[in-house]
């Protein structure tokens, strides 16, 4: 076996399915399963290769998370040719996520996009013909998640992680500068103040993880983004869709005022629907930020619905949006057909130069909404639009990073308590920084040296 790390991920598509599966692969898969899984009556049995085991998954405080079925596939007779454990739990968002988090806490690392398949290939399970597909999968998924994590830099969790990282970096720079420049007149950081600082950060990580677990951060479903210039009927579309479909969650707190975001259920498909600020050229600072967010939302969308006022000719704002969605999965609504239309389907298709579904609607009269829902439904089942795992995954990745950082920081405190010198506990500090930087690919050394030289006056 080439890989030492055990990886885990949710193997089923997100949404409203009846069953969710968490897959664990790697040398510690079995050990982790033993820790999270309890047989009926708290009894212990060995897991049998390729059998279904009935039981429950518990968290570290022994609370039951869900009733599950567990399969164990012994290496090499599994998909990845490693020890694989699959936990089948109740579908939906909560249960799978909680189980995944538990598994990660016990030492598994969140699988990268396409990593199970990659391992299957590298371990000789998949033949050469499939290799290209694996690479495409890995790179396509990656492009997307890279884009999302980049965008999430503005998101609240990554911002908070960023702040924590910055504080740790400052602390490490202080420790390191006194090591590399012992003769400069810089006071060494006091042990108790390091201890306090780290203690505080551990507490903060704890709080962040708790909020994450309560599900406030995890949002899921196909992301549908409504765009269009101002006053074309975007909000009417949102309202119409909301009226028709019972909202699962309304108005996620903490989202920005200019972006309205809701979870709805369109014929059994979980949809996260986002209404954006109208796009137009504006000198207004706040509005400009709103528009920038709209563009970002379009980039992250699984499906873009563009609303066009059919009673007016295409304006330059329309053109700009059309340009932006050219390579995306999109649906175009020619709205206000109750007025005298000057635009037809043909005009739009010509402008875009491609095959794009267009629906005529009059949202104020409620005409065409059915058709819109039909389209979304069909596109989903034809596989044209795909639920995006990556937002959730990015969030879980953040959590994983936090968990790893936290455990390093606890080691650090332990090191301080056993009177280890600062240059040695600094190893744990580097570990924590590595964990936090792993999401955005920031490296410790370069940042550290920049920090040292920007904060301290050094050199001969």
């Amino acid at each position: 076996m080439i890989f030492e790390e055990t990886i885990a991920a949710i193997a089923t598509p997100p949404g409203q399915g009846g069953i969710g599966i968490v897959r664990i692969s790697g040398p510690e898969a079995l050990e982790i399963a033993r820790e999270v899984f309890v047989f009926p009556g708290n009894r212990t049995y060995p897991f049998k290769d390729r059998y279904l085991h009935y039981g429950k998954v518990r968290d570290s405080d022994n609370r039951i998370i869900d009733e599950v079925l567990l399969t164990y596939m012994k290496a090499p007779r599994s998909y990845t040719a490693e020890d694989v454990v699959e936990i089948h739990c109740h579908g939906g968002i909560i249960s799978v996520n909680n189980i995944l988090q538990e598994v990660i806490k016990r030492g598994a690392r969140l699988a990268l996009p396409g990593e199970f398949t990659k391992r299957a290939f590298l371990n000789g399970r998949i033949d050469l013909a499939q290799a290209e597909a694996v690479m495409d999968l890995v790179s396509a998924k990656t492009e997307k998640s890279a884009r999302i994590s980049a965008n999430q830099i503005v998101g609240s969790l990554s911002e908070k992680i960023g702040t924590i990282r910055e504080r740790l970096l400052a602390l490490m720079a202080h420790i390191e500068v006194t090591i590399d420049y012992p003769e400069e007149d810089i006071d060494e950081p006091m042990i108790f103040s390091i201890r306090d600082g780290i203690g505080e950060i551990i507490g903060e990580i704890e709080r962040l993880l708790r909020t994450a677990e309560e599900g406030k951060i995890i949002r899921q479903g196909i992301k549908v983004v409504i765009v269009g210039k101002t006053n074309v009927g975007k909000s009417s579309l949102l309202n119409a869709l909301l009226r028709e479909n019972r909202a699962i969650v309304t108005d996620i707190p903490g989202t920005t005022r200019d972006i309205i975001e809701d979870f709805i259920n369109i014929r059994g498909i979980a949809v996260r629907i986002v209404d954006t600020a109208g796009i137009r050229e504006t000198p207004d600072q706040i509005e400009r930020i709103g528009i920038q967010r709209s563009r970002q939302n379009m980039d992250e969308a699984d499906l873009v619905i563009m609303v066009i006022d059919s009673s007016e000719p295409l304006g330059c704002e329309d053109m700009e949006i059309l340009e932006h969605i050219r390579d995306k999965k999109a649906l175009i609504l020619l709205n206000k057909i109750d007025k005298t239309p000057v635009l037809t389907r043909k005009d739009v298709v010509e402008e875009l130069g491609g095959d794009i579904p267009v629906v005529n609607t009059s949202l104020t009269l409620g005409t065409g909404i059915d058709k819109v829902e039909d389209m979304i439904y069909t596109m989903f089942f034809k596989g044209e639009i795909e639920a995006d795992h990556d937002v959730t995954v990015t969030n879980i990745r953040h959590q994983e990073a936090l968990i790893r950082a936290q455990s390093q920081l606890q080691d650090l405190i332990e090191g301080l308590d056993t009177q280890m010198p600062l240059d040695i506990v600094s190893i744990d500090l580097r570990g924590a920084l590595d964990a936090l930087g792993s999401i955005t690919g920031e490296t410790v050394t370069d940042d550290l040296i920049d920090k040292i030289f920007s904060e301290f006056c050094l050199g001969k």
Partner: protein
Amino acid sequence: MELFAGEYDVIVIGGGHAGCEAALASSKMGYSTAMFATNLDNIAMLACNPSIGGTSKGHLVREVDAMGGQMGLNIDDTFIQIRMLNTGKGPAVHSLRAQADKHDYHRVMKRTLEAQPGLSIFQGEIVEIREKSGRIVGVVTALGDYYSCRAVVVATGVYLKSRIIIGEYSVNSGPNGFYPANSLSDNLRDLGFIMQRFKTGTPARVDGNTIDYDKMYVQPGDEEIIPFSFLHDSLTREQIPCWLTYTTEKTHDIIRANLHRAPMYSGEIEGIGARYCPSVEDKIVRFPDKKSHQIFIEPEGKHTNEMYPQGLSTSMPIDVQREMYRSVPGLENVNIMRPAYAIEYDCIDSKELKLSLESKSIEGLFFAGQINGSSGYEEAAGQGIIAGINAVQYIRNRDPVILDRSQGYIGVLIDDLVTKGTNEPYRMMTSRAEYRLLLRQDNADMRLTRIGYDVGLVDDKRYDWFMRKCERVENEINRLKNLILSPTQEVLDYLERKGSSAIKSGISLYELLKRPEIVYKDIEYLGGKQEELLRQDTEQVEVSIKYEGYINKQLRQAQQFKKMESRKIPRDIDYANISGIRLEARQKLSSVRPESLGQASRISGVSPADISVLMVYLEKRKREI
């Protein structure tokens, strides 16, 4: 008119700290070597501060020594003061730093080179490096001599097109009045190298007779001398102190009033300077709130009054230099003997090198030292020894010696230069080493002496000495594991005196030594002194027991790291054909041409996902063949 003047296996261009190590390495390994210096009086010249070592630099010296290099021995012979820095911190960052007698340092090194069989020393400027079908064939001197050879090590330091700047005055010159080498820089350009321009500087040298030491704080050397070389367990020598003083508000005012005359700010200097060794005007501009800066006054040697004021590096005009120096307590009447200056020079983009320090485009052409964008004597020596070894390995048609980041600071240094490149003179720091606890100065021999021996650089005498040390250390560790201490009254009293908690039952000395308050001296007291053990043996025993937990943690991290390093990327790979890798990463990979997946992962702009795709691609390729 070109004359055939001789034939050598290896030709080393430059006689500085990189050149000396390279030339000694290749000749000791049995390959005829010629070293060319533009002036034989600048061999191993300490052109800036008269000291060797310091944090992480001391580690580099120990590593050079462990592999059979000269720097450690040379400084042990010529130091006039020595100190172990960071003794209040953990063993990984203890660092030796010595003040050298800079004239002795040069003289002793020159004598060593002269005494080395198979090594010829020439004064001469190389103006052309000659290749044929992408392989090195020889060099040409300014006087028209042609020497044929199989490998070349370029170690020209700061001499390529160097220019010295003092305020409004500038002159094309190498350090200290030595003339620059202008032609070779153009020749390298013709060979396809992209040249960069870096800048560094040095303070004035002042007359010690005009210094009032009563206004300064004395900085003596350590009472117990710990030498650099593993071959010396202890030394005795009379030491000369350094002195500490501070800049004043007045110094800063003078500098601020004259900033417009500083070449760095008037635009006179185009080279990129290092954050690592800023001029005093840089410090005052960048940290305006700092009211005072330390100045260490260091002797240049035993037989001179010249003193080196560390912290007063500047490129201000001479009148400003005088005025500001004289505003420092103790320097009120100081005479400047040699002015401070900034120096600009050409260097190559180190990303054009392989990890062996061989050029990617020309076989047999190696580079070491400041020409690669590094700064510092020790950094130069570390690259020099590797370039010398690998020039020979190339001639032998054997695999080059490449130290990875978990094996040595030399490995970190070369990997950083080659993989990431540098846009300012690169200085080593302990913070750059991820596996710092493994890369201690006390265990450099454990890490590297065997490697030096295997390529034939470490001689039998050193190797035998090393093997016996290993044996003594191992025996002592075993003895401490097996020696169980009983809770007798005497033992309990002793532990109480040391503030250590009482033992209830027997405990091995090994376990006892892990307690933070217990040191090896206590073990000696409790378990009997082992007369045959040297200072370096007990140090090794103590560190490896005391920090075992953390050392093992780092060993595990290093193991993970090595796995990725061992997955080699074939040289002929065409990144343009791997569609899954993002464009930016593809370009970076094509330009650096990493040798392993590990190295690839350290290139900035290459993401973990790109590495994943690359991994799958390599496996696919392997199966197709």
